[in-house]
């Protein structure tokens, strides 16, 4: 039986200082790694004879505007069907140079997941075969899920309502 403790030992033992910020959230182990180490970490988890993280469940992005120097986070969630355990790998990148290696050489499914993340956050996946927008229109010139594009506050009072009698 593989549990999160064992995972920490295996991953930490293999990569040492390259993996950090281990945390457990509602049963799922998460950790961070640098962009340059991501491919080797994912390949290690995928090809490990015991851990067998055979499935890439999800890739998505998160924007932390207050986290200066590491505003964007590319999160990938892997699943080991045999051991029934998941692991979450985070890569933090600065907004000036948001480049993360693409996981397409390891998983075909990463293709559209990364295109979606690029589409909404502008995270650039190096090595991706076809990195272009997927859900939004091609000539959009901003990345809409970034936190600087706030939705309108429904409780705002600065609108002139006289015209519409609201």
């Amino acid at each position, binding site marked *: 039986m593989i549990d999160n403790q064992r995972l920490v030992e295996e991953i930490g033992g293999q990569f040492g200082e390259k993996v950090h910020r281990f945390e457990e959230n*509602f049963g799922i182990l998460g950790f961070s790694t640098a962009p340059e180490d991501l491919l080797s970490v994912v390949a290690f988890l995928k090809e490990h004879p015991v851990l067998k993280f055979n499935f890439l*469940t999800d890739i998505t992005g998160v924007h932390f505007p207050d986290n200066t120097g590491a505003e964007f986070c590319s999160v990938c*969630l892997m699943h080991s069907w045999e051991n*029934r355990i998941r692991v979450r790998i985070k890569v933090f990148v600065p907004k000036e140079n948001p480049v993360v290696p693409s996981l397409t050489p390891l998983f*075909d499914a990463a293709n*559209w*997941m990364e295109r979606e993340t690029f589409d909404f956050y502008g995270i650039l996946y190096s090595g991706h075969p076809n990195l272009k927008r997927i*859900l939004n229109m091609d000539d959009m010139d901003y990345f809409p*899920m970034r936190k600087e594009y706030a939705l309108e506050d429904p409780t705002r009072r600065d609108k002139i309502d006289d015209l519409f009698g609201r």
Partner: protein
Amino acid sequence: MTENNTIVARTQEEALALNVPLQEENNYTTLNLGPTHPATHGIFQNILTMDGERIVSSEMTVGYIHRAFEKIAERRPFYQITTLTDRMNYCSSPINNMGWHMTVEKLLEVTVPKRAQYIRVIMMELARIADHLICSSIMGVDTGAFSGFLYVMQEREKIYEVYEEMCGARLTTNMGRIGGMERDLSPTAIKKIKDLVYNSLPKVFAEFEELFDRNRIFRDRTIGVGPVSKEMAVSYGFTGPNLRAAGIDYDVRVIEPYSSYEDFEFEIPVGHNGDTYDRYKVRNAEVWESIKIIRQAIENLPEGPYHANENHYYLPPKQAVYQNMEALIYHFKIVMGEIDAPVGEVYHAVEGGNGELGFYLISDGGRAPFRLHFRRPCFIYYQAYGELIKGGTVSDAIPIMSSLNVIAGELDA
């Protein structure tokens, strides 16, 4: 078309054998499959490059009904996000609703009473049946058989009547609440469900299967069409019936049981070749398994409350709002979305109609999610479609698409 009538060879071998010049340029034609075409069952475009009738390559364009749910969710209190999830896989919206409630309950660490869990299981399995009925019968329509579709449509109507009884809506259900269900199973609902799973559905569905399973035309159109190997399915992130058709018994209900699925006896049907026919067979077998689960759930329905006493998220009874100060306060706070959620990072997955439907929620302690991502099974496996139709004909491409059960609402979110 070449202007003069000279014969040209398409391949080097042909050129040598027939002693004719090799064709220099490809006479490829471009065909738009979609965006709006009845056979695509939704709005997505495939730009096909055709060599005669064979598909050489295809470029898929999606996003025609993208509605920015993830962005909208960042402003909404948790209970208002349920209505967004309805509109993803609209063939099985109760599963999406329940998946979202369970995600929030995980974050709030709420224990849902057993009765509510069983009611949820019943509703989710009804939704799965409705989803699979549509998908399997639409495959019939796409291969030229319309009557099967009409047979099962009546059964889907009965499922929708149960939805109406439970939540008042049919398509965009907004069913259940954070902490349980908004109302108990009424005697009418129980009667309707029992009638469905014991009498009408098994009969009609057996008849439906008889129409198609050994039908020569249907088999010729589907067997060996669009096969998916195990390796390809895993690499492309297939989940749900499409993955199981390839022969892998991965089912979230079994691997990570939620909402008391561990209490029920059921099997995971798997296919062999992962072709269109296998996907059809796996879905049909799942309908029978779902019937089995609903029968067990309705027979062993536990007594007790149908919701948790989660004052901060579950609306108090309306009568109490008028008479009781506390109830009035909670009512106001819930409706206005004034309640701050705990800080946390949750991933919860349910077995949706199409596969693993995941909710990745990051809460920073505010009223709305800091980040909410939907792992939509359709979106992830639809990218393999181009690979599946390559080398086939257009008439193969249509059943492959309907057998994948691509739902535009889920694809584009």
